[in-house]
């Protein structure tokens, strides 16, 4: 009923088209949410980590002729290290300062990464090498693209991997403990600094994977490519309830699908505006997000 006169199979196609980009947002959103959950910082530079991931994979593939899977792994490793370095150098000294100070620093890091990349690679638009089959199947009238399917499945696999780490490993237990109460966790023998560092590493690696996939999907790459998807992923994290892993995943898919629907049936020009409007609406109606529980400041 929402879209009069539009055939249902095209709506389904649009929704399916939204899934791969949604899964990418979900991966980036997970990084935002993990970092927020553990040190209550909106890591503004997360979108730039995503950009670095895409660029480094491109370099691994074109300059060293590495296969896609290896390039992706290496770029995840690269950004994991980058994420840890950023945390050590820029955020750690500010752990005791005001949240405004930390957020401004994060904005600074975001711009720094963008411009360092611009300095190294120049302003020219790079194209991501085509290393993935571009076949399209038609199943029951629905068009399914191999790349889209690949993106979707890879994202799901990575999310399952993260779930395993968070719920089944010692590191995951430490992360959850630090998220609940840093001081108590420290008293129980958890190495808080190490845990925070590893959280940044994990989040950054996921962002890199997302960056590689977006590189393949949209092909053209610039140092600014991380900013808008980063913001949207943040919106996704807030939408699902920041600090909650399932919330981030759900939010990512939701934003991806909404965006694709707006672009398909409304205007491409307004698709970004709609995402920001959603953010503002969510913050107003239920700031704790869809899955979040409201809490009030302790007095």
């Amino acid at each position, binding site marked *: 009923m929402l879209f009069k006169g539009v055939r249902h199979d095209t709506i389904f196609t649009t929704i399916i088209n939204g899934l791969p980009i949604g899964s990418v947002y979900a991966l980036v959103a997970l990084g935002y949410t993990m970092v927020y959950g553990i040190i209550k910082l909106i890591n503004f530079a997360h979108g730039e980590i995503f950009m670095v991931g895409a660029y480094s994979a491109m370099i691994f593939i074109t300059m060293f002729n590495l296969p896609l899977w290896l390039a992706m792994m290496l770029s995840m490793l690269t950004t994991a290290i980058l994420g840890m370095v950023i945390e050590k150098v820029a955020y750690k000294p500010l752990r005791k300062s005001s949240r405004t100070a930390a957020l401004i620093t994060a904005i600074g890091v975001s711009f*720094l990464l963008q411009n360092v990349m611009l300095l190294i690679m120049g302003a020219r638009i790079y194209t991501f090498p085509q290393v993935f089959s571009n076949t399209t199947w038609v199943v029951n009238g629905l068009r399914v693209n191999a790349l889209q399917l690949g993106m979707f499945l890879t994202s799901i696999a990575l999310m399952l991997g993260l779930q395993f780490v968070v719920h089944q490993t010692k590191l995951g237990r430490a992360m959850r403990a630090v998220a609940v109460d840093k001081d108590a966790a420290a008293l129980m023998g958890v190495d808080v600094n190490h845990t925070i560092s590893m959280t940044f590493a994990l989040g950054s690696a996921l962002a890199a994977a997302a960056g590689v996939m977006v590189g393949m999907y949209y092909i053209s790459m610039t140092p600014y490519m991380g900013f808008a998807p980063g913001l949207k992923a943040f919106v996704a994290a807030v939408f699902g309830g920041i600090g909650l892993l399932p919330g981030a995943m759900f939010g990512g898919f939701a934003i991806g699908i909404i965006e694709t629907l707006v672009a398909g049936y409304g205007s491409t020009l307004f698709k970004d505006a709609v995402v*920001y409007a959603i953010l503002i609406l969510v*913050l107003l109606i239920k700031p704790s997000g869809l899955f979040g529980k409201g809490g009030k400041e302790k007095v």
Partner: protein
Amino acid sequence: MTSLLKYKNLLLLGLLWLIVLFGVNTLIDARIINPYYRQILYGIGINMILGVSLNLIIGLSGQLSLGHAGFMSIGAYSAAIVLRTQPHLGGLALGIGLGLFISLIVAFGVAVPTLRLKGDYLAIATLGVGEIIRIVILNMSITNGASGISNIRNLMSWPLMYTMVSFAVILTLRFKYSKFGRAALSIKSDELASESMGVNVTKIKVLAFMFGAMLAAVAGSLYATTYYVVKPETFGIDMSIGILIIVVLGGMGSLSGSLLAAIFVGIVNMFLQSYGQMRMLIYALILILVMIFRPEGLLGLEELSLQSIKSKFIKKKEVVS
């Protein structure tokens, strides 16, 4: 006795104000300040207004707004559109008035709901608002979409810029040293305590936000007539961050700090003009380093005044002797 001293200071300030007005004017007439430097001077003036206006929001009431460029663009487009049919000072005044009016309405509409949000959420929400304003302007016909409006009548002059900057500074200073400014600072310091002391926190935050947004619109109008071209892409997040840097560098809460920072940024821009992107890189580094090593910025909450300068000098002399 104290009131006599006050009048003496006021007189001194007035005299200083006139000397700068006529002095710079003479220098411009004599071409000692050539058109290139004059343009930089105007740029600094616009940045000063932007700096103090954002400082009202961030420095005084502690609300991190990242959508300031959006409000600036409202003023810029209002002036540009009015000046198209009324290319004279009256038209500029009308354009500024229109910008003030629209930014008042938009700021109120944005402030009332979003200022309930806490610090970092507010930052993102205002960033979203700034982007929405930009996208709306990009898609309107009266604003001429992506190509923007060019050939705007250039009406900028030193006396005009100087007067506007002076007004902005005086008004923001008066705000700071009033019950509103005190209440705003108390909110920044401890919102809960402030509310428990009988301060209507939302009202103060909304007032500061609207006041700041309207001043940004004025700066935008001046921008339009100074640079005679406005485009949606000018007023993106880069611009908002640029203004943020002025506030952070000068000190969150210090209006005179913002003025000094605007001068500093103007001069740095001049030297780095040919390096283009290096500028943003240096700004980014400045943001990070200031936050880590001197989060209170150059002046912190304090203002530069004749007294404070005098007392500094006297102290130094004592140390020497």
